[in-house]
């Protein structure tokens, strides 16, 4: 039996060994390739090199946002105090004479150490020279910084050490024991232990730009033998005794020991705050002054540029992954040979949050460099970091600032005046709105202003708001966080008449030259409905005024409501909806800088279908239709382009936007432009020519830019009232805070004898008459275009002509 049991035990052993053998075969034979590849990866070590975020520039190359200062040069504290040189010197002396160190007399050893320490001191000294030369700064600057760091850390150490000592003494006393001087010394030594600040690297130079930083990184990878042949030749060895350890002679010390180049960039906005001087002599007569006014404009284009935040969130990583999947070009640039994304987010990275910073994150984000060291050979390979791509906006920062100044109530154009005939707001009330300047040829947005804005530094007192309640009420009334130029729905009002005329002609529902009877109201038996503005105000018709029934040109010039009611009726609900859609209503521009109102035809209640009543009202831009100033400017630009619709752009990509032909006949375009020109130039009939200031003086011209041809249309759009609940305790007690009409003016402008080059749309909320409020604003924007060289000037003059001074924050 014993032997059977032995066989049993042997069998069990054999089974166990077979299992082990099988797993061994599995690992070595089946898993070999994968395991070998993984094991070989560990023969190299890869480190990341910092990079920089791309800049955001305006169309002329002005920097709106950039990373600055870019990099820091950090050095271990021990190097700054000389402690490092001391210790390295001691070590080197011992190492060089490894064979005989113990036999050397004490004095010789001390002399050797002192000599070696001097060598390291000189090396550190040379490091500061190298760094200063590479970074392009004075040596004195580095030294001052080092002194600062040492002073600060020493002070900190003293404070910590004193506090620690006191604590130890207190504890000692608590035990009842007396404190001998010996014991006190021991406690002092205990308290004097180095603090963390003394064990880390400190920035001795910051604000280094990317090329110099990369140069420093490369310098930091080099090393030299401090006790090499050169040293031997000059000194004959330490204390004249040749070294007995050849390996120690070859030992290399980095050129920049115990140091690193680290990214420390902060995002700066050089044009964030600008001073703009406005010439008030061309203002409407009651507010015209011989002296110019200088305004400080804060947060210029900041709502467009947007902001970055520090700290990565899960969705950033997800977004990055999706971006790489979607964009092959980016993927090619971003992936290392081993397939790691050089631009992937790491903790503490900055991420574009809003505006262009957020929308163009993929381009702006830089790619880190890599350094792969083969641990066997020490060979270094890798990729240099590539800074993120710059994003060039279509915005002109100077023009943007100028338009902001024009829209600033302090300039006087956007405060209520008596001659505004504002029925709802008191004189002196600040008015807010939006303005868009569009390049007709390219559909690029040159300026896009919305007032008021949220102060980026949170200082509301600039807007005269002191208490929290004031800010709260202001925010509820005026929604400063909304970019009105693209984000707020506005009824188009009369400015849409150009679109309706173009659409009706295009569909054959109106023949150019056809005169439509100008009755005071559309329906013969309903004098209270669908009235003409001239009938409503003066009891006459446009036929009485003109001496003829208006054709398309006349209708544009005098803004004949009945004419456009008629076209609305002819187009019908579906027809008029398609006209608005053709001109971009219902399409969000997709600028990516925040909430956008796509424009809408139809009521909010989708169950309710449009009827002929709606079609008639939409003929004059009222009824269930809304759009934004950007829609308006682009619709007019489309007419100026001869009927080509192009989506507006905010970023210059070098790619032409996709255009859409609207099939407007040349006669249609000519008639429209003629009507628009007459509307702002015909002294007798034009609705947007002059303003009666009711001061006994002559009427004042709205447009007074010499050498510039203006085509334009006023609009006074009935707007929904803003109801607020002042005490915030429920909807029952809501009161009307704002009501009345929005004031529109849209113009096309070009040099005399040339085609229209710029489209400008201005809307001022609840300001009443389009001609009286938005007209002068439009006029000043045309002056600004001249001032910045866009009109009546050579394009090359633009930057030089800007009288902008950068204000240091």
């Amino acid at each position, binding site marked *: *039996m*014993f032997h059977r049991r032995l066989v049993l035990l042997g069998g069990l052993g054999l089974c166990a060994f077979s299992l082990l053998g099988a797993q061994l075969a599995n690992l070595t034979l089946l898993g*070999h390739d994968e395991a070998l590849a993984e094991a070989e990866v560990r023969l190299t070590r890869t480190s990341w090199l910092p990079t920089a975020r791309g800049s955001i520039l305006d169309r002329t190359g002005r920097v709106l946002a950039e990373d600055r200062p870019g990099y820091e040069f950090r050095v271990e504290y021990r190097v700054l105090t000389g402690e490092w040189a001391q210790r390295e010197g001691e070590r080197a002396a011992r190492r060089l004479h490894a064979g005989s160190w113990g036999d050397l007399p004490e004095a010789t050893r001390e002399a050797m150490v002192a000599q070696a320490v001097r060598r390291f001191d000189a090396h550190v000294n040379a490091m500061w020279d190298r760094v200063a030369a590479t970074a392009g700064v004075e040596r004195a600057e580095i030294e001052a910084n080092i002194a600062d760091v040492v002073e600060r850390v020493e002070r900190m150490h003293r404070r910590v050490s004193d506090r620690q000592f006191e604590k130890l003494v207190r504890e000692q006393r608590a035990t009842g024991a007396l404190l001998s001087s010996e014991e006190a010394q021991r406690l002092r030594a205990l308290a004097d232990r180095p603090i963390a600040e003394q064990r880390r690297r400190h920035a001795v130079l910051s604000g280094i730009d990317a090329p110099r930083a990369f140069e420093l990184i490369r310098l930091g990878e080099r090393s030299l033998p401090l006790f090499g042949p050169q040293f031997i030749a000059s000194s004959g060895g330490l204390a004249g005794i040749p070294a007995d350890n050849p390996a120690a002679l070859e030992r290399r010390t980095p050129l920049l020991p115990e140091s690193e180049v680290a990214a420390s960039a902060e995002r700066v906005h050089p044009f964030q705050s600008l001073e703009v001087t406005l010439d008030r002599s061309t203002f409407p007569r009651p507010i015209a002054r011989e002296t110019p006014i200088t305004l400080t404009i804060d947060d210029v284009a900041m709502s467009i540029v947007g902001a970055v935040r520090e700290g990565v969130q899960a969705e950033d990583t997800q977004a990055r992954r999706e971006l790489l999947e979607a964009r092959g070009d980016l993927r090619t640039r971003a992936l290392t040979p081993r397939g790691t994304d050089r631009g992937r987010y790491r903790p503490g990275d900055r991420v574009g949050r809003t505006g262009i910073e957020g929308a163009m994150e993929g381009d702006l984000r830089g790619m880190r460099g890599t350094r792969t060291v083969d641990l066997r050979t020490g060979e270094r390979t890798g990729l240099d970091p590539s800074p993120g791509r710059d994003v060039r906006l279509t915005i002109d920062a100077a023009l943007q600032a100028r338009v902001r100044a024009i829209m600033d109530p302090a300039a006087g154009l956007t405060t209520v005046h008596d001659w505004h005939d504002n029925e709802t707001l008191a004189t002196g009330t600040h008015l807010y709105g939006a303005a868009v300047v569009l390049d007709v040829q390219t559909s690029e947005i040159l300026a896009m202003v919305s007032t008021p804005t949220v102060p980026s530094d949170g200082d509301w007192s600039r807007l005269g708001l002191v208490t929290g309640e004031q800010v709260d009420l202001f925010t509820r009334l005026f929604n400063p966080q909304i970019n009105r130029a693209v984000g707020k729905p506005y009824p188009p009002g009369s400015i849409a008449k150009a679109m309706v005329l173009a659409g009706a002609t295009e569909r054959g529902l109106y023949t150019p030259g056809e005169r439509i009877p100008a009755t005071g109201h559309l329906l013969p038996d309903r004098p209270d409905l669908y009235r003409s503005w001239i009938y409503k105000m003066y009891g006459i018709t446009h036929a009485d005024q003109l001496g003829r029934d208006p054709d398309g040109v006349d209708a544009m010039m005098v803004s004949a409501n009945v004419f456009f009611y008629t076209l609305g009726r002819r187009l019908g609900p579906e027809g008029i909806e398609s006209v608005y859609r053709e001109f971009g209503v219902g399409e969000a521009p997709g600028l990516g800088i925040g909430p956008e109102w796509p424009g809408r035809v139809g009521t909010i209640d989708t169950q309710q279908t449009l009827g002929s009543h709606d079609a008639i009202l939409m003929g004059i831009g009222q009824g269930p239709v809304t759009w934004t100033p950007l829609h308006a400017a682009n619709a007019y630009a489309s007419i100026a382009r001869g009927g080509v619709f192009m989506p507006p752009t905010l970023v210059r990509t070098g790619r032409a936007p996709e255009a859409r032909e609207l099939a407007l006949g040349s006669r249609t375009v000519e008639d429209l432009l003629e009507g628009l020109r007459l509307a702002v130039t015909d002294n007798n009939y034009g609705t947007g020519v002059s303003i009666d200031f009711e001061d006994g003086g002559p009427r004042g011209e709205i447009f007074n830019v010499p050498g510039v041809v203006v085509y334009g249309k006023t609009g006074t759009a009935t707007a929904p009232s803003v109801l607020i609940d002042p005490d915030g305790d429920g909807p029952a007690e809501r009161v009307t805070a704002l009501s009345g009409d929005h004031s529109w003016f849209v113009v096309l402008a070009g040099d005399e004898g040339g085609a229209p080059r710029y489209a400008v749309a201005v809307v001022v909320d609840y300001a009443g008459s389009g001609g009286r409020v938005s007209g002068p604003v439009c006029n000043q924007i045309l002056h600004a275009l001249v001032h910045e060289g866009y009109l009546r000037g050579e394009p090359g003059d633009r930057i030089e002509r800007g009288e902008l001074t950068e204000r240091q924050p």
Partner: protein
Amino acid sequence: MTLLDRDAGLVQAAAALVSGSESGKTPVSASLAPINAAWLCVVASLGLALLGVHAIDVAQQLEPAGRADLASEAARQLVFVIIGLIAAVLVALPHYKIAGYLAWPALVGCIGLLVFLLVPAVPTSIVAPRNGARAWSDVGPIDFQPSEVTKIAFVLVVAMYLRFRRKHRTLRGLVVPGLIAAVPVGLITLQPDLGTSSLFVPALFAMLIAAGAKLRHLGLIVLCAALAAPAAYPLLKDHQKERLVAMVLQFQGDTSTAGDINYQSLTAQRLIGAGGAGGHEDATARTLIHYNRLPERHNDMVFAVIVNRFGFVGGLVVLGLYGLWIAGALLTAGACRDPLGRIIAVGLCAFVFAQAVVNIGMNIGVLPIIGITLPFVSYGGSSMVTSWLMTGLVMSVALHPARPPYRPSFEYDDDDRGGDGAYGKSAGFGGRALTRVG
């Protein structure tokens, strides 16, 4: 003449020691069996030890081969091998019966040492915890690990206990052997060195099986232990739980732990896999092992080093050498007619086998990482000398065959049926044990 007499007395005394005969009448040469299966163990031990020295050198030195000097650990290991060999000879020559007589005092001494290690008051200059375990005592130039020697003392004590008994064929009779095992297992577990303590159970079982304990009793105990195991989980230390969790994660194919709890295991498997069928050249293997930073690569994980260097073939050679050792020990047990010798051979065999299986198992990722050395191969004096002492003891059993009349041992006519059974037939190996009694 007196001198001669005295000389004669010395020779006789030595002869008595070697032959195990008190009378000293039989000449030494006549009682020894120089041609025996234990030589297989010696050959295997030598092969494994030399392979180990090379593997330690590979593990410790990045410098390419061709340098004459061995790494300092490899050189020391070579010294341990020589010490081990001498120790083996010293143990092999005297009759193992003498070792048996010394078993109880030895075990008591070992237990004393184990208790000493655990006393918190013992200064760390003598007992310095390594990897968190108080398992070594620093005495003289060589650190000493009492738990290693305890293994041998344990085998001897159990063998002494079982040799003339048959009580272990009852369930209650298993209590005493269990208690003998429980004391060292408990103390070593407290160090904590779960690895070493876990070897005692298979060794005890192997000895009981060989001694004819009923398989169903042993099976019942295994079943109860398996059922009770989950209850013991909360008693484990955190790092031990972590290793079990790591093991489970590994089986699930979760590689996210490669940087932490499974680092050692996955690195070892990676290096083993990288070895492939035939391994790598010396310099390549050294580079791979160095930069993959395998922890304990000269010690517990030396098997990974061997397979990386010599591939699947090298791994099979190691398994083969252990097979040879085990075969040598089992054949020696089979050839032995003395119950003490039989159980000693089986017990030592079980220790070597269990230790090799657990160590290789954790290297190739089928068992959790528990600190346990690969006998004869891993770096370390205590482990090396203990392993050689085992070889020496097996050799002693083989060298000193029992003399007739044979007293049959553990020869029950039933394997596992009811009743005590009677001494019965024994189909011995080589026809030498064909004794029929009663």
